[in-house]
């Protein structure tokens, strides 16, 4: 199996995530697009590990994928807490309206 397919799929998913971050206004949907980008990187790591370096003893690619999954879970928890706080204080989750810290 060629690594071309997984890498192209990961590039496509990453681009879709970039589009979602730029085009969406709802903060929860922006977080979902960030998740898409993180998953695209995971596909890359697993594909490199299993297709190009299958004999590596430390299993670095899959370990990095596991750690990214854990960090992403923490990121979603804190991110949604921030969104809830924003909604309670401002009654909106529109990222265009939240420009308090803009210079």
């Amino acid at each position, binding site marked *: *199996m060629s690594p071309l397919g997984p890498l192209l799929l990961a590039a496509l998913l990453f681009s879709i995530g970039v589009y979602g971050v730029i085009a969406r206004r709802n903060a929860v949907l922006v977080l979902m697009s960030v998740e898409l980008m993180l998953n695209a990187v995971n596909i890359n790591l697993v594909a490199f590990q299993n297709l190009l370096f299958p004999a590596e003893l430390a299993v670095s690619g899959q*370990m990095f994928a596991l750690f990214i999954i854990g960090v992403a879970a923490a990121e979603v928890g804190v991110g949604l807490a921030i969104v809830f706080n924003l909604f309670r204080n401002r009654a909106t989750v529109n990222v265009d309206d939240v420009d308090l810290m803009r210079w």
Partner: protein
Amino acid sequence: MTAHDLVFVIVGLVTAVSAILVVTSRHLMHAALYLALTLTGIGGVFLVLGAGFIALVQVVVYVGAVAVLFLFGLMLTRAPIGREALDSQNRGLGLAVAGALFVLLAALIIPAFGGESTAEVTGPTIEAIGIAIFADWVLPFEVLSMLLLAALIGAILLARREAGESGTEAEVTRIEMGEALADEPDRHEAVGTSAPAGELGAGGGR
């Protein structure tokens, strides 16, 4: 084209189409459910690539926890539904940036990996992964557990109702009693979407 490639193409197509629907869907709930489908599809890609343990973790953590968390997040923030409310004005810019990025990445990937092809997919066994976690990667593993603990405490602290109050019990019971609403109307209505702009600053600066 082997059977492996065929399965990968099918799973990859499902994943890509549902990922596109995540960022273009007009309904928030549909977007979250398409996200769950995308994450399941990525788990299938991991299976095709021979990483069974990662696929399992993906389904448990992402589909089981993160997607459900997103569904709750969408239900608790009653946002308006519709394309105009969901998408900002710079949709064209996003399309241009994403398209350019994909073309750039594809132009780099195809010459670099177009010729290579391994005969079969070989992944490490779960036993090898377990030994690697607790031998080579034990320090990052512990740091990750500390990070998860810090994120847990931080999320509780951020999402709590009032800084300094011990809990939310008093407020909840007063909302259910009904007549107590007349005492502090602005505090309870600040939760809803109809809070006036003037009171928001007062509610925010605690």
